[in-house]
């Protein structure tokens, strides 16, 4: 009698285990197919994403030093610089990056410096910042960034801070962050690359 009861219970456990195994297997098969599909999509899109980022970086360098034909990276005390040379291997300028803290996050700035140590151009793209739309995001506009051309040292400050740059209306914090970021980077550049001629 007891033998029958225990074998009944055993077959019940066995059935549950069989069901669980079947379900687990179905789930596993679906997961494997899904993971495989994702790996494929990832490998294809990763190539495109990396290419886009490389293109964007190249474009920034060309826009900031239009006369340069080739670029060379240089590192001084942990600070990265990119030197631009024209077709005759004459240096046409340098590029440095700054990432000051803006209103809602870091702002990535690309700054070009001419051989006479004045700022040649400042570039901030839409993807380089996360400021308030309609206000802080105007720091990407040429109207604001062109003000930095030709400036040096203490000129690279907001007019409110006794400099020469007009802040964007109602976006003082973003504007100040950019100006101060460029100025600090410029001073570091002079320290590292400004020749004592």
């Amino acid at each position, binding site marked *: 009698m007891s033998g029958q009861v225990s074998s009944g219970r055993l077959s019940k456990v066995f059935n549950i285990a069989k069901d669980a195994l079947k379900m687990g297997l179905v789930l596993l098969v679906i*997961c494997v197919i899904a993971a495989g599909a*994702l790996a494929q999509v990832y490998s294809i899109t990763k190539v495109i994403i990396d290419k*886009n980022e490389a293109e964007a970086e190249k474009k920034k360098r060309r826009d900031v030093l239009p006369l340069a034909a080739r670029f060379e990276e240089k590192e001084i005390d942990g600070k990265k610089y990119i030197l631009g040379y024209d077709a005759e291997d004459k240096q046409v300028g340098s590029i440095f990056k700054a990432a000051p803290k803006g209103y809602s996050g870091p702002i990535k700035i690309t700054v070009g410096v001419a051989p006479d140590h004045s700022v040649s151009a400042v570039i901030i793209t839409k993807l380089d910042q996360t400021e308030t739309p309609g206000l802080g995001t105007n720091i990407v506009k040429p109207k604001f960034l062109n003000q930095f051309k030709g400036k040096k040292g203490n000129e690279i400050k907001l007019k409110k801070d006794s400099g020469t740059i007009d802040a964007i209306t109602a976006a003082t914090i973003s504007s100040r962050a950019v100006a101060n970021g460029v100025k600090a980077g410029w001073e570091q550049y002079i320290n590292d690359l400004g020749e004592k001629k």
Partner: protein
Amino acid sequence: MNKWNVFVNGIMKENPVLVLVIGLCPALAVSGSANDAFGMGIAATFVLIASNILISAVRKFTPDQIRIPIFIVIISTFVTIVDYTMHAADPVLYANLGVFVPLIVVNCIILGRAEAFAYRNDVLSSILDGIGMGIGFTLTLTVLGAVREIIGNGTITLLNYELLNLGEGFKPALMFIMPPGAFLVLGFLIALNRLLIKRKG
């Protein structure tokens, strides 16, 4: 219900955002610009239709006890595909939508339709349901985005083109592209939809 009704249902009477009040998080977060709102709508619609198709196709082979995990695996696979595709195709839109792209996987609309419709109906009806709900969602989001953008920024952008620009003289009410504006405009849109349904019915 017949096929046409299935389709139209999602746009007005059972509009996911305005009537069922689900799928709110992306509706409010990305509707600061019509462009971003439309992009989110299209992305979510793609996931909705794709997962509706697949879930409906395999519904006979899906053990009932593990259907939720299977839904989740299928939906998250399509979400990840959309995630990487958007990142490659439109990096600016991708950056604007931010964390809300992967969050499409917990969009109540998609999981809800999978459980309520795709799991119990044939593939064709599921496709129509997905399209209808998707259009309702995308339309609502884009209208929300357009209203917020025009009042809060003086522009309307769509598909990366600036469709309308009220110019420098227009001083926008910034609040509308910020969080309070989102809640406000949506509240009024719900009231409006309700009035329209009452007039029609």
